[in-house]
């Protein structure tokens, strides 16, 4: 882990820096220089190519190749094309968007402007969750500064490229972090998930081609432009390139953000950075990737922090939220929490998610109460499979992963009550 511990952050450079959120500070760190250079020298397709070859993947959870996503936009579209910044960070256990928005909003804005240039978007909406009033203030102040400095508005720095960025406030709905639900919400409707196809790139916001990118994804773009795609690509492992600010939380001695390159092990994060449990008791399980991520037992903590390595053990790296649990935690209740969270936050559009999650809570309660546990465990497994196969989006489609992992790795917790 020595390499990781000495790793110089590329995204979180300004976190904790006095006045780091100001335009002056951002410029003093070389900020907006990549933008000015590319406006003068590069055509949009070159920027798309750079981001593609950097290996950058969506940091909101899905890990889809960012540059590739941009190429799905129709060529020679007369416009308008929209860029939506997904700042609806609502996954329990994640907070890297919030810290970056508060401490270095200009990095996000520069990434947004560069990405809008690359995708030929003329308007960008930042969909920000209601629960982040300080992020709202920091972003709005930064947007005002950027307009005054000529980085936003008409004919940016004489390039002929124009862009407006608007902040749009959410209203406490977790599901609006799902990209199609975010679009519905922005249009003023219920935040119900849309079936795909059509992809938002073809028919997105207000029926126009739209790119939706996460805050951390966009903030990574200026880094790629400044240091070069090759440099960015040199961090990481396998198909997971670059860096991610991992978030340590839960029963952990040292909670907080750790920006490292992909490829280090989970164990390293938990012990070298996290310092073990806060309670001092043995660590029992770790959940990575929010409430839709699997609960990992000790045997799996040597898994490298890499999208594919996590997928191979039916887990997900997601947005890099890491929550630790000590040995006093009853994993059957955590499984119940996953189903309950889904029941509360489901948009209600598809049946497996809306009703499956409610039934999931009931079945887990029956198992724990000792009501025909074997039969009900089979039923729960079937319910999970139905939700995975039949849900419209990741909410219903991935809620079963923590449940299944709890059943597989911590089966005794489900039957403990009866044997007591």
């Amino acid at each position: 882990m020595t390499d990781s511990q000495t790793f110089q952050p590329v995204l979180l450079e300004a976190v904790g820096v006095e006045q780091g959120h100001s335009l002056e500070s951002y410029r003093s760190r070389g900020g907006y220089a990549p933008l000015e250079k590319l406006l003068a020298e590069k055509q949009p397709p070159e920027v798309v190519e750079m981001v593609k070859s950097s290996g950058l993947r969506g940091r909101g959870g899905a890990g889809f190749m960012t540059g590739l996503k941009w190429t799905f936009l129709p060529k020679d579209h007369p416009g308008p094309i929209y860029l939506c910044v997904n700042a609806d960070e609502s996954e329990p256990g994640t907070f890297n968007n919030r810290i970056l928005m508060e401490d270095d909003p200009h990095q996000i804005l520069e990434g947004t402007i560069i990405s809008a240039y690359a995708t030929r978007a003329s308007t960008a909406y930042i969909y920000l969750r209601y629960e982040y009033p300080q992020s709202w203030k920091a972003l709005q102040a930064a947007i005002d500064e950027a307009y005054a400095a000529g980085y936003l508005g008409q004919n940016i720095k004489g390039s002929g490229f124009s862009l407006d960025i608007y902040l749009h406030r959410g209203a406490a709905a977790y599901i609006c972090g799902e990209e199609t639900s975010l679009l519905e919400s922005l249009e003023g409707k219920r935040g119900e998930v849309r079936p795909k196809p059509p992809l938002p790139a073809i028919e997105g916001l207000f029926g126009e081609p739209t790119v939706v990118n996460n805050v951390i994804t966009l903030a990574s773009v200026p880094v790629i432009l400044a240091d070069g795609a090759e440099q960015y690509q040199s961090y990481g492992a396998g198909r997971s390139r670059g860096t991610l600010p991992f978030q340590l939380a839960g029963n952990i001695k040292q909670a907080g953000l750790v920006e490292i390159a992909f490829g280090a092990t989970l164990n390293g994060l938990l012990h070298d950075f996290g310092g073990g449990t806060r309670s001092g008791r043995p660590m029992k399980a770790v959940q990575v990737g929010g409430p839709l991520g699997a609960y990992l037992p000790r045997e799996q903590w040597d898994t490298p922090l890499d999208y594919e390595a996590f997928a191979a053990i039916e887990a997900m790296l997601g947005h890099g939220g890491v929550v630790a649990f000590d040995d006093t935690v009853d994993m059957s209740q955590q499984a119940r929490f996953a189903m309950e969270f889904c029941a509360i936050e489901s948009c209600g559009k598809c049946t497996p998610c809306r009703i499956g999650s409610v039934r999931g809570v009931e079945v887990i309660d029956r198992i724990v109460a000792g009501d025909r546990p074997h039969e009900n465990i089979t039923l729960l497994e079937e319910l999970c499979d139905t939700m995975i196969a039949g849900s419209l989006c990741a909410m219903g489609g991935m809620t079963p992963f923590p449940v299944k992992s709890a059943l597989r790795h911590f089966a005794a917790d489900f039957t403990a009550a009866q044997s007591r």
Partner: protein
Amino acid sequence: MIAQRKVLTDEMVAKIEALMPRYPTKQALTLPALHIVHDELRQVPLDAVVEIAQLLDLAPAEVQDTLTFYQFFHQEKPHGKVRAFVCRSISCALRGGEQVLDHLCTKAGIKPGETTPDGSLTIEPAECLGACDFAPCMLAGDDLHKDLTPEKADQFLNAVRGGAS
């Protein structure tokens, strides 16, 4: 023929209209308009829904449909002068978040989701406030209260009762 507005003030209407150039459709102003009204009144009564619909060329049912999807908006009664969201999510739960919520509610004499009889405080559970590194936490107005303990919760309640937010 525009009917006389009963709830929306000229100021609210001006704020909503100022945002219109940002969006290609009027319907996209639904959430901003609901927020503008809610910021002032701490609720969006049904009459306001009708007036927003009129302003945005929508059916009142469309605005109401959107409003009811989001847990944020109070409709029938305004929330308290201070609205406190206490996180009930995983990281906070692992560090005593539920106990803090119970403590606050017991001391304030209300259940989660309710408002104190004097209208000073509403306490609501929240899913995740994105401050897991300072769990358990609470958002009251624009202020994030970190590393909550029963003692800190008491101080907060005293400040609310003293009229400060």
